[in-house]
């Protein structure tokens, strides 16, 4: 178990790289006027990744942003469980999950957002999007909202899609190879999360990323 805590007006950013065999539970606490930016990248290779995040927002103006990208191929499995509790009024959270799957890979995401009765003035966002490149890949994104308070701004959305045929054709008709055309569109899809990574992390991941995206 790893515990992460920000308080006293601190702003923290953590990048969590999850590679083949990664298995970890995080307990996260964000205090008043503090924020935590978590960027998670999942590259399960041919194995399995499993992460559990217990996130508690424990003070006014506490904010947590969780941005995750996973790229799963072969027979790999990606599992992410997020339990996020707004334990204080006027706290904010946003989650963005983006996944690209091919081969026989499978992914499961369970995202619970809980807002107890006394907690007004909450802003909670949750988005999960997956791209399935091949028939054999499987994805289950399960958002779950337990809202017991009024005056809560909460939005969530979940999509599972494929690469757009018209976009692929347009690129290929100009001479872009089929492989690069797909990588261009995958890059566009993943960019929101990739853009949050610094150069040294990108350099470290370069070999693993190039089969998926154009950097």
């Amino acid at each position, binding site marked *: 178990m790893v515990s992460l805590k920000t308080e006293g007006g601190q702003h923290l950013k953590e990048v969590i790289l999850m590679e083949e065999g990664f298995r970890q539970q995080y307990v996260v606490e964000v205090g008043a006027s503090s924020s935590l930016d978590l960027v998670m990248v999942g590259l399960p290779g041919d194995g399995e990744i499993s992460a559990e995040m217990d996130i508690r927002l424990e003070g006014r103006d506490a904010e947590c942003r969780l941005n995750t990208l996973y790229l799963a191929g072969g027979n790999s499995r990606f599992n992410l469980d997020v339990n996020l509790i707004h334990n204080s009024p006027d706290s904010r959270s946003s989650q963005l999950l983006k996944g690209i799957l091919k081969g026989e890979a499978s992914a499961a995401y369970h995202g619970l957002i809980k807002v107890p009765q006394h907690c007004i003035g909450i802003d909670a966002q949750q988005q999960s999007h997956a791209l399935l490149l091949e028939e054999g890949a499987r994805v289950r994104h399960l958002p779950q909202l337990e809202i017991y308070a009024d005056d809560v701004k909460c939005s969530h959305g979940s999509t599972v899609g494929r690469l757009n*045929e*018209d*976009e692929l*054709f*347009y*690129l*290929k*008709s*100009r*001479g*872009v*190879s*089929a492989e*690069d*055309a797909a990588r*261009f*569109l995958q*890059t*566009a*899809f993943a*960019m929101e999360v990739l853009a949050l990574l610094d150069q040294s992390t990108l350099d470290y991941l370069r070999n693993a990323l190039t089969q998926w995206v*154009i950097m």
Partner: protein
Amino acid sequence: MNKELLSIKDLHASVADKEILKGVNLTVNKGEVHVIMGPNGAGKSTLGGVLSGNPKYAVSQGEISLDGESLLEMSPEERAWAGLFLSFQYPTEIPGVTNATFLKAALGEVRRHRGLPELSASEFLRTAKSKLEYVEMDKSFLSRGVNVGFSGGEKKRNEIFQMAMLEPRVAILDETDSGLDVDALRIVGTGINRLRTQENAIILITHYQRLLDYIVPDFIHVLHDGRIIKSSGAQLAREIEEKGYDWIINN
């Protein structure tokens, strides 16, 4: 010397199990400009789509060859490498992919397959800037998403800009004049005309004479119900504009 560039023989093609092209024959030689006109739904864009290898069309019969090489077995990208180019009637928007990165990849592949050396980043930029001038586009368009948020006219200019970059041997321009204001029409028209050489060929799909004020064609063909029912010289466009298609169809 063999002057034949594109040959289409008895081409039949369908979309969603509906036959649209019902035996198209067309030969295009080097240096020629051909115009294809015809009523809405005649199959003009279908012909462009089939030539460029769009997987949504199924070819059931016939042959297409470019410089003696059969195209039907080739993927869309292989056709582009061989020198085919389609300017789309409705260019696709691709968010998150910039015009510059996309074109650099496209031009890189095209040049590699034509045995030309790779361009450095600065050579690419210099070429791009000079080709942008053909259609009077600002270089800021290079860093924008492909066609994303472009006005109708800007999309059409972007198509011709790409044509200028890729230097195809046969370009099919599908209603590149539609949606252009008078100034843009002149710019695009003269831009296309500058790209005309003795070595390439252009097929213009259009409904109007106006583009032909800038690009004088060698032939005009009328496509109706999946077949070319009339071929004639440049004067036919004016006649069609005056009299419509009925007199040709009913003949």
